[in-house]
């Protein structure tokens, strides 16, 4: 890398890295380049984690008509620091009969795997750490590694609750991985590539000043919603946080973890959530691109993080709204609703792609017809599915024999 890119606001980070690499001796250039990117990702997303925890506690408080934390620093903004100090100074307890090695490794594997997923996320123009040709595939492969870590934690703790929690987590993650991947297949089909950067480039084009984001297409919108539902379940966020249901299995697979190891689990959970939101942004919301062409002067990384923050806000909002599902509801929802719906999304994407080019002009009546046809392909199954799943189920007041 000899030529420096222009130091515009958009490319400022890329420029800084290139400058740094340029000024190191040749044998270390590759190393410095890697360290720069890894350090940047870890620092940025770990601080985003701190910010999110604060926002979440504040937001949930407001949703429940409380203040939320407001003691540490002005308006409680130093709360994450207090939390960090607390978790660092707490005693780290390992159960006597636990499998020490695995118990120790589980949080590390979890955090490591969660951070690895960022390697392929384009967080700005020319800001993908590793531009893999099979980036989406890599993301999902790494995502499955977190399941291993979860089961390591649950198994090695030698606690029935942690084992139950781990089993729930595995069942849930495996079930929801399928709709997650299937809904992103639609995007891969249309974009014709597995590379995350190429997918974003595909969406960062404008006609009539509006970006070609996939979420603006009927299959993209449906796919996006399904993707986000599956992502919520995949990262064990409420309302799909059964693996850690306090009322049933106390804290699930990390029940035997304390102190900093617990904080690592907590961190990994949020890191995963950001990663999967980032993938959702990349696949459906045009990654770092702006929705309308006249706003394209705003730096690309600001767009990405703005979208990410909006996602986080939605996650918090949903968490403050929905109660936790039951295990059978969770499984029913995955296999009876999510899976068929994602298949129809793929069908709709196919129709969108292969509708006769005479009809599928980018403007005029043809575009409207294509839009409507694709919307119908998703909407009709949705209505049918919702009706059939609902039929035969009566919701009535339950009579309790002893509790009244």
């Amino acid at each position, binding site marked *: 890398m000899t030529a420096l890119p222009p130091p515009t606001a958009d490319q400022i980070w890329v420029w800084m890295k290139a400058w740094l690499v340029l000024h190191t001796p040749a044998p270390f250039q590759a190393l410095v380049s890697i360290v720069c990117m890894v350090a940047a990702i870890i620092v940025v997303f770990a601080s985003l984690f701190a910010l999110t925890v604060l926002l979440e506690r504040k937001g949930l408080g407001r949703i429940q*008509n409380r203040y939320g934390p407001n003691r540490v620093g002005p308006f409680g903004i130093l709360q994450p620091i207090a939390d960090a100090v607390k978790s660092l100074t707490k005693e780290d307890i390992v159960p006597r009969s636990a499998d020490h090695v695995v118990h120790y490794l589980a949080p590390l594997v979890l955090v490591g795997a969660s951070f690895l997923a960022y390697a392929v996320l384009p967080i700005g123009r020319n800001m993908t750490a590793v531009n893999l040709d099979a980036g989406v595939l890599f993301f999902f492969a790494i995502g499955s590694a977190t399941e291993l870590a979860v089961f390591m934690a649950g198994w090695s703790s030698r606690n029935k609750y942690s084992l139950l929690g781990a089993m729930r987590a595995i069942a849930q993650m495996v079930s929801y991985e399928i709709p997650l991947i299937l809904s992103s297949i639609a995007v891969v089909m249309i974009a014709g590539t597995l590379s995350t950067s190429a997918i974003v480039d595909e969406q960062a084009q404008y006609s009539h000043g509006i970006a070609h984001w996939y979420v603006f297409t009927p299959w993209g919108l449906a796919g996006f919603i399904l993707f986000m539902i599956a992502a919520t379940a995949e990262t064990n966020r409420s309302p799909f946080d059964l693996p850690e249901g306090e009322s049933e299995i106390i804290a699930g697979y990390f029940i035997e973890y304390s102190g900093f190891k617990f904080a690592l689990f907590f961190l990994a959970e949020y890191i995963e959530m950001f990663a999967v939101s980032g993938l959702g942004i990349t696949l459906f919301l045009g990654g770092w691109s702006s929705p309308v062409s006249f706003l394209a002067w705003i730096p690309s990384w600001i767009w990405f993080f703005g979208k990410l923050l909006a996602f986080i806000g939605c996650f918090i909002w949903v968490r*403050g709204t929905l109660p936790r599902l039951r295990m059978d509801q969770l499984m029913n929802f995955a296999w009876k609703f999510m899976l068929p719906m994602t298949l129809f999304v793929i069908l709709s994407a196919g129709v969108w792609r292969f509708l006769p080019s005479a009809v599928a002009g980018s403007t005029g009546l043809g575009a409207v017809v294509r839009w409507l046809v694709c919307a119908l392909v998703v909407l009709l199954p949705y209505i049918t599915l919702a009706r059939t799943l609902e039929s035969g189920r009566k919701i009535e007041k339950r009579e309790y024999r002893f509790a009244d």
Partner: protein
Amino acid sequence: MFGEGILQGLYETARNFFGSYVDKDRLVTVQYPEERHQLPEATREFPFLLYDGPDPEAGLRCVACQICEKECPPRCIHIEKSKDKKPDFVGKQQFYPAVFDIDVSVCMSCQICVEVCPFDAIRMDNEYELSTSNRFGGLLYTKRELAKPNEYYRKIHPTEAAETDDRRAKEAEEAKAKAAAAAAAAAAKAAQVAAIPAVAANGATGNGAAPKPAEQPADKKPVNQ
């Protein structure tokens, strides 16, 4: 069926979220150290000892009868009776507690000590900030820390205090009346006694001794197994 319920829920929570910034009444939280709830009058937390007048030693109502010590279910009261006596509010000579300790960490706020005290000497406080950095000495309250003036009692439990004060005033009145009556009777008796010798000076002296009280039959009863 189509997820409208979820949308409704999302609308509700969003309304709460923004409403809590606009409408202060929504936030029910009391910001504790700065704001406090008005305590209900019947609040009870922990007993304290009442005293009348300005001096906690002289005015302490407790007579060290140790009823409360015996009744306290968790046995957290410790009393040591004094050797000497001091006058109580009606002027009667009474013992007083040389030591009166209550262990706050053991007290369960049952108010039984208050119910059993025949001398209106112990009442429930509403002080609830009892935390201390010394977990042994700091939680053992001695007589000095426990003694609080009657005015304080009137302030925290006005209704109860008024009732107690009325009753005690009446008692004091009665005691005074009784004392006056006794004094009058004594005076009359003294006059009578002064008169009697003149009359009975020549009577027999053998029947002057009072008859011995009969032995209590209950004491002689054989103990049943």
